[in-house]
């Protein structure tokens, strides 16, 4: 189903996808669980599948690749400066003789780890803050939503760039925290909205009347019911985190030397891209392919987990239109 790419195709796709048991006939004797249904739907989406393979391949490559190469990112080959790709250095070498393959893999490692960590942290924060605000309401809700609004107004790129002199020379993990700090707000709002409706459901009320503490209700009953939203969100966040990180690193505001990321590699070599294209094309290619793969997987997941999402979104749009009018 390649049509999954397109957001407004509700009319075309939901008809087929939401009739789950009909179009995904289970094998006789096997009960159709939700997990299987989602799995089947996802597997049917070719682009998402390709994306998943690419992402897994890249993570594997970033960590296993350097072991297979005989060059390392911190050693130089003094017999090869600025050589285009050839059998000895498959990605060529830079101006001090470092193997570009080793460097690119090193950068890819850092960028992918940052992307993954930022996504995990920001989605966790979004789930906790959103659920807490929606569940407790009152003062907690007011304060948390005020923080959300405040952070949404601020231009994250500017703020992190301004703060960059402060975390220069410190661990790159600070950058992860900074990036995560500016990525959770929109999800937190959606989570809050969903919590408001979940709160009124029977099973939550039952748990409450049985004397479960609020912390447990949120962790065991509310958050698991939003799993699909959170999974989709985390996936898409990996992509945007990698983009944000590389963008900052491009200017030297993100990952600092001696660490390398795809962003510092692209930034450092963009000037010489017209004369020594291999310095630029390899890191840039990895970056674009990775983000593209993440987007495809995100779309595939959304369609598999939540076939009605496009319809919901359209309804929301209409609601806001009417409110504005």
């Amino acid at each position, binding site marked *: 189903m390649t049509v999954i790419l*397109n957001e407004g195709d509700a009319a*075309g796709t939901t008809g087929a996808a939401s009739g789950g048991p009909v179009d995904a006939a289970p094998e006789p004797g096997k009960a159709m669980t939700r997990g299987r249904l989602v799995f089947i739907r996802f597997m049917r989406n070719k682009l998402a599948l390709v994306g998943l393979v690419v992402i897994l391949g890249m993570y594997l490559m970033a960590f296993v690749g350097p072991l297979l190469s005989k060059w390392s990112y911190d050693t130089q080959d003094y017999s090869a400066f600025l050589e285009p790709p050839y059998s000895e250095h498959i990605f060529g070498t830079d101006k001090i003789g470092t193997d570009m393959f080793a460097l690119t893999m090193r950068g890819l490692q850092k960028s992918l780890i940052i992307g993954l960590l930022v996504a995990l942290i920001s989605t966790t924060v979004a789930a906790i803050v959103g659920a807490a605000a929606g569940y407790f309401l009152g003062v907690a809700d007011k304060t948390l939503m005020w923080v959300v609004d405040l952070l949404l107004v601020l*231009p994250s790129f500017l703020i992190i760039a301004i703060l960059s002199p402060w975390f220069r020379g410190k661990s790159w993990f600070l950058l992860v925290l900074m990036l995560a700090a500016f990525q959770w707000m929109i999800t937190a709002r959606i989570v809050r909205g969903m919590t408001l409706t979940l709160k009124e459901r029977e099973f939550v009320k039952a748990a409450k009347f049985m004397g479960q503490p609020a912390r447990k209700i949120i962790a065991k009953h509310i958050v698991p019911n939003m799993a699909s939203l959170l999974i989709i969100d985390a996936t898409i966040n990996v992509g945007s985190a990698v983009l944000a990180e590389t963008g900052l690193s491009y*200017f030297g505001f993100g990952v600092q030397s001696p660490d390398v990321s795809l962003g510092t590699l692209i930034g450092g070599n963009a000037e010489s*891209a*017209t004369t020594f294209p291999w310095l630029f094309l390899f890191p*840039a290619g990895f970056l674009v392919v990775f983000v593209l793969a993440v*987007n495809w997987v995100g779309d595939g997941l959304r369609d598999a987990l939540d076939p009605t999402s496009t319809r919901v979104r359209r309804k929301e749009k209409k609601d806001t239109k009417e409110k504005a009018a």
Partner: protein
Amino acid sequence: MATFLAFTLASATFDPIGVLQQRNPPPPAASIEAKKRDLHLDQPIPQRFVTWMGGVVQGDFGRTITDRPITDELGRRIGVSLRLFLLGITIGILFGVLLGVVSAIRQYKFSDYFATLFSFILLSTPVFVLGTLLKMGAQGINDSIGTNVLIFVGETTPGFQGNWFEHLGDRLQHLIVPTLAIALGQIAYYSRYQRSSMLDVLGSDFLRTAQAKGLTRRKALFKHGLRTALIPMATLFAFGFGLLVVGGTFTERIFGWFGMGDWLVTGISAQDTNITATVTLFVAVCVLFSGWLADVLYAALDPRIRVN
């Protein structure tokens, strides 16, 4: 608000004196003290902000670290940035909307798939990669033609001699590649949303009615369909502008334009609070203005709002 925070954060993190102190041989303590007083570093941060804001109201944006008035450079830099932004956003919206409409009308045809793939790839490509790729492409074209048709360094040729018309031509040559770098991303962004909002409209009853009462399909689509489909887009313009400003920073940097984005990077690298705060203020004004523009567009497209 954003400006205040940017100013505070910048003042708190930047350490312009540190650069001075590390200079070798170390400058005498008295001159460091004097510099501190010049930069108002002896005052607490809120007071510094009030001093700066007071100047801004009177049209004085303070001085850079190297003691040059910011106001002198401000006008020229805003001009450079706005030229890039306005051209980029105009082209982006125009072609983005067009592309979205076309692929919605010809849904699931080859052109639709092609446009979808095109915008997906573009949306996954950060501006700095796209800009550099365009630079390489322009270099290739120049090489194959044999002359410098597409110039991608700076916004004018330094020391260029000629009449007004030749000047215009020279600027155009410089303008094409950077504008493309900005516009392509915008086209991809808008075409996606335009496509889905147009698809919504295509299935609606009023469009069928319009055709039933005797309008041609083309006329019904553009007079009734497109206008309705554009309404949700108006809100997007404000968001799109934020995207544009960040993209503009990269574009200016890559193509050597001395605009606001370039200034921000210079300001942060030089740890200059006044420059950083000025650029932040400019961005804030731009975003506010685009929000206002979105409201105006909204009212222009949707008569229900004008009635209220």
